[in-house]
């Protein structure tokens, strides 16, 4: 199951060259670039772990790519995303966020339907245990 989230999620995965260009775009706009990783790509999980500090005073994307390579080396079996935080007044929020790494075996989710009082229906996104876990 291919997890999609953030920008460009319906495009094929970005190549390193494309990532470099996106990062350069962030830096040119003066956004702080962050590398984050997680084992739990649930859409409601907003707390990904940070790889190092936000990078806000770089001139060139090569520095970010160096960190990304290092992060992939250590956490290549997890989801990694890059986000750009705009600290300027009025924005003060993440302006761009996209996946740059996925594990060899992706996480599986399913939508669980639950009937509750008065025939109302609740839906929950539940992570499915990998089917091949036993093998």
């Amino acid at each position, binding site marked *: 199951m291919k997890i999609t989230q953030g920008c460009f999620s319906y495009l094929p995965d970005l190549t390193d060259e494309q990532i470099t260009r996106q990062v350069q775009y962030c830096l040119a706009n003066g956004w702080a670039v962050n590398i984050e990783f997680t084992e739990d790509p649930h859409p409601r999980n907003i707390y990904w772990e940070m790889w190092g500090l936000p990078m806000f005073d*770089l001139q060139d994307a*090569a*520095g970010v790519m*160096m960190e990304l390579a290092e992060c992939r080396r250590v956490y290549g079996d997890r989801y990694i995303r890059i986000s750009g935080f705009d600290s300027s007044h009025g924005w003060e929020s993440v302006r761009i966020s996209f996946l740059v790494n996925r594990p060899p075996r992706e996480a599986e989710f399913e939508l669980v339907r639950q009937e509750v009082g008065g025939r109302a229906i609740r839906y929950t996104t539940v992570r499915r245990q990998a089917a091949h876990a036993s093998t």
Partner: protein
Amino acid sequence: MLDVPHATTTEHNETHFDLRKEAEAAGITDTLQQLEQELVGLKPVKSRVRQIASLLLIERIRQRAGLVSAPPTLHMSFTGNPGTGKTTVALRMAKILHGLGFVRRGQVISVTRDDLVGQYIGHTAPKTKEILKKAMGGVLFIDEAYYLHRPDNERDYGQESIEILLQVMENQREDLVVILAGYGERMTSFFASNPGFRSRIAHHIEFPDYAEAELLVIAELMLKERGYRFSTAAREAFEKYIALRRTQPFFSNARSIRNAVDRIRLRQADRLVSDLDRMLDVADLETVDPADVLASRVFSGGADTRSAKS
């Protein structure tokens, strides 16, 4: 989807090149001219910089002509006594490299040991990497680089920093140019104990000391920049000043001259203000009298410990 700028040129190679236009487009002619005009003396340095610039220009044209071109190693080391213009030339070098597209952004990050080496275990690597990331796409200028290596302390964190630097210098040659600077002898022993550095640096440039005549020209340039000039007698006095100052300790070429010029301005202003009843004209304001020069400590027994700063 990606517009690679050179994608079209590799298919049908250009065959004719207007060298003058190429050089001007890259801004080298301007930068070299500026170098020639603003830096007094330094003949070997200038000719070396011109050689490097020419090589880079030709390399770039060769690339477009479809000839074999290996990306040149651009790391450099500048050695020379204090105040011989190493930092200034490094800034110019960054401009040339940027003009020719061998560095993408052209910023110069100037650091010393303190910026690279940490205080405790585990502090050095992030610190060095932080600086390297900032310098990516530009030039990293490491002043007094020999301090990175402390031969008397095996466990010094400098070595860790050196290893990270070497790795990046080797693997990311197209992202970053490193310029090491320092005083001649100590750099020699630094390279001797870190052979990795020596072999990764393509250009070793030595900055000679300035001759007395050159120092005088520098002083006059500095005065001119600040809107002053020597009177004839003051000029002679300053010649004597230079000759004396050179023999005294802590002499650091152009830097000493700059400090001397600043102190001369101070004394000139003091002299003018001491006589409040006088009417001043413009000539008074911009002329330096011999008295302003001769009042220097250099003439009265010379530099004591306090002139370590001068």
